[in-house]
């Protein structure tokens, strides 16, 4: 009996507050993904040397040494930039995916009660056939 009393409450929730819940969860995940891939930090430090590796410029060193150090440091910065760019790109892709997925969830959610009712009914019939 309870089920029939709950049903209208459920539907009211499904087409009411559930949307704001989904919106909130969606927002949480969006922020989470953004933070998880450290997109902001990685962009700010995009050209920092990889794990602070590299040589120090020493006083009174030859031109060759300076050039060598410059090459090594530039290389380290490049390595850092490449690694960071990879993560940033993956992060952005995942973010885009989450937007698409969120929209899909919203659309599915709209029709879910009807779809489930249909599926339950026809699978039952299908089984009995």
């Amino acid at each position, binding site marked *: 009996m*309870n*089920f029939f*009393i*709950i049903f209208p*409450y*459920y539907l009211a*929730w*499904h087409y009411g*507050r*559930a949307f704001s*819940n989904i919106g909130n*969860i969606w927002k*949480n*995940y969006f*922020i*989470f993904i953004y*933070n*998880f*891939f*450290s997109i902001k*930090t*990685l962009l700010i*430090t995009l050209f*920092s040397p*990889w*794990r*602070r*590796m590299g040589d120090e410029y020493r006083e009174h060193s030859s031109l060759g040494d300076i050039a060598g150090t410059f090459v090594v440091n530039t290389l380290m910065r490049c390595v*850092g930039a490449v*690694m*960071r760019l990879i*993560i940033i790109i993956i992060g952005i892709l995942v973010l885009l995916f989450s937007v698409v997925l969120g929209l899909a969830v919203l659309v599915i959610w709209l029709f*879910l009660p009807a779809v*489930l009712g249909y*599926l*339950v009914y*026809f*699978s*039952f019939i*299908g*089984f009995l*056939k």
Partner: protein
Amino acid sequence: MNFNDIKIIAKKLYYPIFLLEDTISHGRRKKVELILRITSVLSFLTPSILYFLNMVVHLSNFDLYTQKIYAVSILLLSLWVIVIMLEAFYFSYIHLDEKKAQGIFIDFELAYTMYKMSPEDITATFFGSSMGSYFLMRCGISAEVFNEFLSKRKQILSNVNFKFNLDDNNITWEDFIASIFEQDKDLQIFLFQFSIQKKEVIEIIDWIIERNDAYLFAEWWWSKENLDHIPSIGQSWSYGQIYTLQKYRGALPMAMSARYEVHSSYGVDELKELESVLSRSRDANAILVGNDESGRLQIISHLARKIDEGSVSPELKHKTVVLLDTDSFVSQNGGKIQFELELSKILIEAISAGNIILVINNLPSFISSSKTLGVDLTTLIEPYLSSPNLQIIAISDTDNFHQIIEKNILLSQHFEKVLIKDIDTTNTIKVLENEIMRFEDSTIFFTYQSLVAISESAERYFSEGIMPDKAIDLLLEIVPKLKSLGKHLVEKEDILSLVKVKTGIPVGELTSEEKNKLLNLEKILHARIVGQDEAVVSISNAVRRSRSGIVNPNRPISSFLFLGPTGVGKTETTKALNDVFFGDQGHIMRLDMSEYSGAGALSKLIGSFETNQTGILSTMLREHQYGVLLLDEFEKTTEEVMNLFLQVLDEGFFSDNLGKKVNARNLIIIATSNAGSDLIWEAIKSGSDLSKSKEIIIDSLIKQGIFKPELLNRFDGVVLFQPLTGANLRQISKLMLDKLHNRLSGNGINLVVNDTLIEFVAGHGTDPKFGARPINRAIQEKVEQIIAKKLIDGSAEKGKGIILTKEELY
């Protein structure tokens, strides 16, 4: 506000899911969801298995089968989705955060419990709910006992007489349960029997709720808070590596995530202070000072955890806490130059890494071990201390902090002191509540009172160590013992009986044998002590008081001053008291105070800082914490020593030469003195009642300056021992001769103790100055002598009775 009003609010907030819970509860739904998830996946896999099977052996009706299986799969899948939707529905309601701001709010669990309760009998229906019965379990109260209480109540708390005082817009479990407790007087009396009063009620419900919330929170994995705590990628990529430091990196103890533990306020302020010191732009170094070793590291672990979870100030984000294992560092770098180079390397590396919080455990001992290598650690690390790219947390105990760090100007300039405050009992219990999470399972369950008992026993009976460490150690020791005993429910008594076994101090509920003993204490003592009624009565009373637990725990168990002439039973009384109170475990520690009468008596007892000599008393009490401390001829010692005992009697401890506390709270202290014997003797001679002359005698001792009044007042009792009279002497002689008889019969010699013999022996004790001591001498010198002679000349044979005649004796 009455009960029904709250129920209406509860219904308004949650009615739809009350219905859902009534139909199928959250716990059931979780199980159903799991089953449906597994079966729907399996049923989708079956058609493909059938497909391959059909290729090998041709199945008739293959198409029909697969069609039916698909139908079942879709059905199961749909049902699974429905259950998930119901769960979403449920979670959406129980996390009604937006509603907290509007009007009166009740937490879902509480609302549902109240919704299910009957307004006719609030107490019974609350304790019948799942929360209520769990509460009773934590109190160690069985359902039968509680039902019996319910049936005997005089008054029933119902909607009519239940009033709820709301102090804010949030109805909490604490408010609710406190209201029931305050208004149900029968319940108060009932719970009081289990040592539960309002404070305990609140503590227990807090404990249950915090645990429950933690589980609920863990289920809510999509919440912002849960997602926030997942560490991010690449945060450390802009920071350097610490190859050298990595070699000496020590492990920090596991810190429970702040959300999952029962929150104690222990270490919380310290952690905040630590964070604020470390967040400074320069000289962001802290020294954590406290004696609780594991507590100190726990604070560091919590800091590391908070940084990982990102819930710290922006200055501390992305930092890495690294514990330097100083012992391993010292052992691996034995030479001065090597030590200096390696440590500099570590510090330079840490600075260039840019995100390191370096933790140096036991800085004082690191300083002293580096000193033995000839390294001046302070000047070595000083240049690195003000770097904005490195933070250092040093750890120290209090004594060494004052002795070594505080005196060092360089260090105290660069390190900000963070002092760890001592923990109190409430917080110790919370620490234990977190600790027992590791042990509690289907085989073992702790009651709240058992945790209180652990905390209190650790504090009271174990003087070594620091709280809450001591309490945790006691818990760790007790768990395997209880498991081996097959104990499921751990109660206060289980803890106390294990403490009793460990210490020998009788604690806990009285056994019937013990009760009997305590009630007949006077008789038991009189079997060994002749006469001395006053002494026996006051000692018996003191023992009963102490055993019933009503005495001040911050003083010795009991203390007496025995006054009286020699040989009247003062020592025998002490021995008897030790046996009665401590049983086999007792230990009499005797100090002849006449040996501590000269200059330097105090340092002989407690040790001396100058000569670094340990004290006799402090060593004695460290070796034996439990027993009777007998101070013979107390009046002969110096005033300094008497002042020491003034403190011991008052506070139950003293400090030795190194300033370390020595515990005297588990002792019975007995001081004896024959000062005033002459007055006692005169009083007896003049025929006056000794108890009436007691005041005069004590006054005269004070006037003569033998004892200070404040010292006499500190004793639980000043007991006068009477000189022995004729009848007493005969009794004592009999007791002593019986002892001899027993000893001899062990060798097959049967000494007949008759009146002649008793009369003879008692005759030696007539000098009141020496009391019963000559009796003993008479037995040794005369009686034993004669028996020995008889055995040698053959006039007495083993096995046959030996009767000593008047002629032989006199």
